[in-house]
């Protein structure tokens, strides 16, 4: 107590801050933001590198010159088809869903102040997925109504979990989410038994997540949605650092709860759109936030989380396609298989630290 509380007269009758002190504060505030800019541009370069590797390398190598010739409409037998119908759409979709999952996951983890409260741990992605498979396989829908169903499913799960957890957004929320995830899982498995053998691959996409074989029109639609949602998110997210202090403090500092709720809604939309396009690519939303945070010295950063998500999906897809000979694994299998150990590790490590309940230690 004696250490933390300064003598009364100094704090009451403090002299006006000297020029030097202003300078120190200014530098202290600038350093993280400079570091953040560096991090974001570094990650953007990494995404570009992974993107290039995904498009140019692999079992069929394309030179950079050829790639641009193809891109500007020149027909190269064989290569044109492989690039335009397989490699390029895969890579573009990977970047888009990676951004969506990364940003959406980071929103969940920070507004709910729990690194475990990512959309795939608490069943939001599976809710989108379950609604989509039900719409496709049992109701016979296709096209944009399926995406609408996915968004509705994600919203329904998010609202149920929030209602069950009540005001305790910590452990109860995660546990309620685990229960909802189990329910959504069994819904998907039920639909899985109702489809015929030829649709199994299709349904499997909704169980694990894959960026393979998606039409350019879907990718365009997703890009359009993200072009609106991501800037809107960044705008609303300016309140994020304050909301991380807790709902009461945030309200005291003038950030109304409707603002965090709006941010959560944007997070749900991002996740649902990503799932509608590529299925619930496991653990990307979960991993991206903490990784971006630790790269950013423990500060939440949505742009970096989105870019980390894009790198994860690109690398996961590349590994799934080429790491195992004559086996083309969907990206969700790869991220799920390697993401779960990370979740376990985080759980073990989080338990050792006193502040584990606030989510700040996920850095």
């Amino acid at each position, binding site marked *: 107590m004696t250490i933390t509380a300064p003598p009364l007269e100094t704090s009451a009758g403090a002299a006006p801050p000297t020029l030097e002190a202003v300078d120190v504060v200014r530098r202290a505030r600038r350093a993280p933001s400079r570091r953040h800019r560096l991090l974001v541009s570094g990650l953007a370069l990494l995404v570009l590198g992974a993107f290039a590797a995904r498009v140019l390398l692999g079992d069929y190598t394309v030179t950079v010159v050829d790639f641009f010739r193809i891109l500007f409409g020149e027909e190269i037998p064989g290569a044109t088809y492989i690039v335009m119908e397989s490699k390029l759409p895969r890579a573009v979709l990977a970047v888009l869903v990676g951004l969506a999952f990364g940003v959406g996951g980071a929103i969940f983890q920070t507004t709910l102040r729990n690194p475990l409260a990512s959309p795939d741990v608490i069943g939001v992605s599976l809710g989108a997925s379950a609604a989509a498979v039900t719409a496709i396989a049992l109701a016979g829908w296709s096209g944009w109504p399926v995406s609408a169903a996915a968004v509705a499913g994600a919203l329904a799960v998010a609202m149920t979990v929030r209602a069950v957890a009540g005001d305790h957004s910590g452990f109860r929320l995660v*546990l309620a989410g685990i*229960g909802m995830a189990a329910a959504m899982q069994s819904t998907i498995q039920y639909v899985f038994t109702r489809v015929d053998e030829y649709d199994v691959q299709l349904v499997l996409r909704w169980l694990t997540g894959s960026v393979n074989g998606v039409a350019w029109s879907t990718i365009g639609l997703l890009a359009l949605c993200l072009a609106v949602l991501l800037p809107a998110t960044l705008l609303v997210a300016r309140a994020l650092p304050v909301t991380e202090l807790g709902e009461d403090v945030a309200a005291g500092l003038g950030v109304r709860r409707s603002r965090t709720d709006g941010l959560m809604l944007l997070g749900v939309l991002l996740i649902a759109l990503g799932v509608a396009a590529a299925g619930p690519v496991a653990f990307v939303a979960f991993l991206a936030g903490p990784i971006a945070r630790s790269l950013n010295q423990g500060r939440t950063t949505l742009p970096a989380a989105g870019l980390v998500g894009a790198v994860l999906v690109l690398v996961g897809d590349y590994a799934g396609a080429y790491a195992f000979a004559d086996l083309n694994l969907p990206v969700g299998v790869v991220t799920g298989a390697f993401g779960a150990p990370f979740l376990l590790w985080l759980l073990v490590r989080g338990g050792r630290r006193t502040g584990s309940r606030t989510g700040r230690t996920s850095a």
Partner: protein
Amino acid sequence: MTTRTLVDAGTPGTGPAAGSPEAAATRRPGLPSTTATCVAVVAVAVVLSVVVGARAVPLTAVWSDTHPLHPVVEARLERTLLALAVGAALGLAGALMQGLTRNPLADPGILGVNAGATFAMVIGMTAFGANALSQFLPLAFAGAALATVLVHAIAALGRDGATPMKLAITGAALTAGLMSWTTGLLLADRKTMESFRFWQVGTVGGRGLDVLLVGAPFLVAGAVLALTGARLLNTLALGDDLARGLGRRTTRDRLVLGLAIVLLAGTATALTGPIAFVGLVVPHVVRGFVGPDYGRVLPFSMLAGAALVVLADTVGRVVLPPAEVQVGIMAAAVGVPFFLFLIRRTGRSL
């Protein structure tokens, strides 16, 4: 009465009667009437399971061999028996897990035991070409045992030890990871996938008596171990220190009970596929009727688990015609709302 009070004090939040054991004991129905009710429920469930289905069967067809619907009756009897056995095993395994870990949220499905058994069996199918139940059983046991140990070991690391919350999250994480690995293996092997997607949801339909007969010895062994372990559980419920003070070797006790859980949950998973939430719901409901004494909770959990799975299977046959809703999904439909309710009720104590 002293024992029960102590047990109650040692298991906060595990039973509705935890607050006032005396008052609850007087309100509780007597043991004979509870037994009678339980047996009656099981009997009604069995009769319904034989009679109800895509095609209703008159009771006369049950007795006469010549009745045109008699084959239907036989098929339904076989699946009813399987449902009884698996339900009893899951109810018992759930009660054991909840007692052993003093964790109100324990269930073989939630804590990753089923996922471990499933994963081991899929490895056996794709890598070693296993296709008979006798080959699946050892695989399922190994997988269930490994998953149990892994989940508890990981959850126990760190400062707070294995809290119910950490166990549930560890189980969920392990389940998610194992499912990804399982899917990866299945994608490499289309034929296994085709049979697996029906097995994965947990169903008692279309499996003959021979399947049950292979699994029966293991189920019986597990049940005997479990039922003789009632006193161990009552002592363990006092807390490890007190149990050791009373002369129990807690590590050995835990190993014996863990073996029973692996036998029961592993066999059940090998027989029907993963069925979650039965082990969660049943012991809670049973404790509400018979109190926290494991000498009663365990046998009644067996009966109630059997009744629940048979009823779930029966309702699943008619709820969404023309197709069946598998028992694993019906169990989740009942179990998830119950799980959410438990979380709301236990609140901050988790």
